[in-house]
């Protein structure tokens, strides 16, 4: 009988509290969205499953002696995992469109307004009872507007580890929702005349330019904003592996083996931060609302800057491509392409939108560096 009691006490049902049960349901929900609705499955399947595993009572898989807890400590607390993913992103990204038309960087800059507007929104939420965001918390939440997963995880792990779970979930969820959130805003802010603009073909980019590009970006970052150097550094390193043409083996490793293994581990580790006392709070609802806001404002700012460039260039720039400045590579660029095709069935904007799209990645890494430098301890 003694063993039977010991066993009953070791059972999950005898120990599960409401919070854990709900978080397991949330984890299942995330996996459902990932599989059935194709919401960023590469991250949301591991995050959702990590949430389920970490909320199993007694087992302590997400705790300090559990496997996922140890992975979190080694890979996320140190910031190594998001940086390795950024290296992979660099190795996977073709910056050619940006090099061919550097002015699209301004679209990537404008779209970061979503970040800073959300920062104010997060601080303003403190007027509502139940919210108590510090400036660090607000900065970590605001970066959701950057529409860039690894940047958001990196910044949140530095400024507000307690909110990491909610922020990562919001960031990837809204990136998946880009095709829903953006088109109405894009149509509202532009005229048909603007949307049908056919852009000039991009000039070819030489291999030398591609090789110099990572150095130019990194050296500017080193001189002006070293707090963004880890992110920009790994992004440009990955891109140099890709473009140098002499380290094919390493480029493949960064694009496949490393990023895949790290993605699995990173997802599980983030999932372990989806615990009831951290996630099932009104603050999470606030984060979700602010996230939607951030994406919308970022899109708006990007399109408005697109309209300015439309005027400034005498109608040579299609303002729709400004929406791609939020990053969410490559989905935002595809959305631009689709909205463009809706107006003119022969107007393919994809390549033109790739410039602001990858500019958005650099832009949000820069914004993250600013937030780190100004609010970090």
């Amino acid at each position, binding site marked *: 009988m003694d*063993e*039977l009691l010991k*066993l009953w006490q070791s059972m999950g049902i005898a120990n599960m*509290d*409401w*919070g854990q049960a*709900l*978080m397991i*349901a*949330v984890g299942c*929900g995330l996996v459902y*969205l990932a*599989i*059935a*609705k*194709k*919401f960023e499955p590469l991250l949301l399947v591991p995050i959702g499953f990590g949430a389920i595993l970490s909320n199993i009572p007694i087992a302590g898989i997400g705790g300090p002696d559990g496997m996922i807890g140890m992975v979190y400590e080694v890979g996320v607390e140190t910031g190594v995992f998001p940086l390795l993913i950024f290296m992979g992103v660099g190795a996977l990204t073709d910056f050619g469109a940006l090099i061919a038309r550097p002015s699209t960087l301004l679209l990537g800059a404008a779209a970061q307004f979503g970040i800073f507007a959300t920062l104010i929104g997060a601080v303003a939420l403190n007027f509502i009872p139940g919210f108590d965001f510090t400036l660090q918390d607000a900065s970590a939440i605001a970066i959701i507007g950057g529409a860039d997963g690894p940047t958001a995880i990196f910044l949140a792990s530095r400024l507000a580890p307690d909110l990491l779970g909610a922020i990562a979930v919001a960031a990837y*969820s809204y990136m*998946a*929702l880009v*095709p*829903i959130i953006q*088109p109405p805003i894009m149509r509202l802010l532009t005229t048909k005349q603007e949307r049908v603009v056919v852009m000039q073909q991009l000039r070819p980019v030489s291999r030398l330019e591609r090789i110099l590009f990572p150095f130019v970006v990194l050296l500017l970052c080193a001189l002006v904003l070293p707090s963004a150097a880890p992110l920009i550094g790994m992004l440009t390193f990955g891109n140099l592996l890709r473009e140098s043409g002499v380290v094919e083996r390493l480029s493949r490793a960064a694009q496949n083996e490393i990023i895949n293994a790290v993605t699995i581990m990173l997802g599980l580790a983030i999932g372990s931060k989806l615990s*009831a006392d951290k996630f*099932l*709070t*009104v603050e*999470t*609802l606030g984060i*979700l609302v602010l996230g939607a806001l951030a994406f919308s404002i970022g899109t708006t700012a990007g399109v408005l800057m697109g309209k300015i460039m439309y005027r400034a260039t005498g109608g040579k720039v299609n303002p729709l491509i400004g929406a791609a400045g939020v990053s969410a590579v490559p*989905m935002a660029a*595809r959305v631009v392409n*689709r909205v463009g095709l809706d107006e003119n069935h022969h107007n393919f904007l994809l390549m033109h939108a790739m410039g602001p799209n990858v500019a958005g990645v650099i832009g949000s890494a820069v914004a993250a560096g600013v937030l780190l430098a100004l609010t970090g301890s």
Partner: protein
Amino acid sequence: MPETSLINESLSLMAIGMGIVFSFLLLLVVLLRAMSWIAGRLSPGLPEASAPSAAVSTGSDAVSASNDELIAVISAAIARYRSSRR
């Protein structure tokens, strides 16, 4: 003798252990049958699976719904959690 008590302990461990293993897997048989029955019913409920480009396609109701769903599900979870703590 300590060996004898250890033997007794291991005998009860065997009884309980095999009991749990059998109960667990028997329960799993039942659950898997139930799962297959339910899956048979829902089967046409997962058609997006065969349309891998769904998320990228137009702003369909399916995806739109899931947006509200995300917030709705988490809101409900939070509400329930809050009330359960009082």
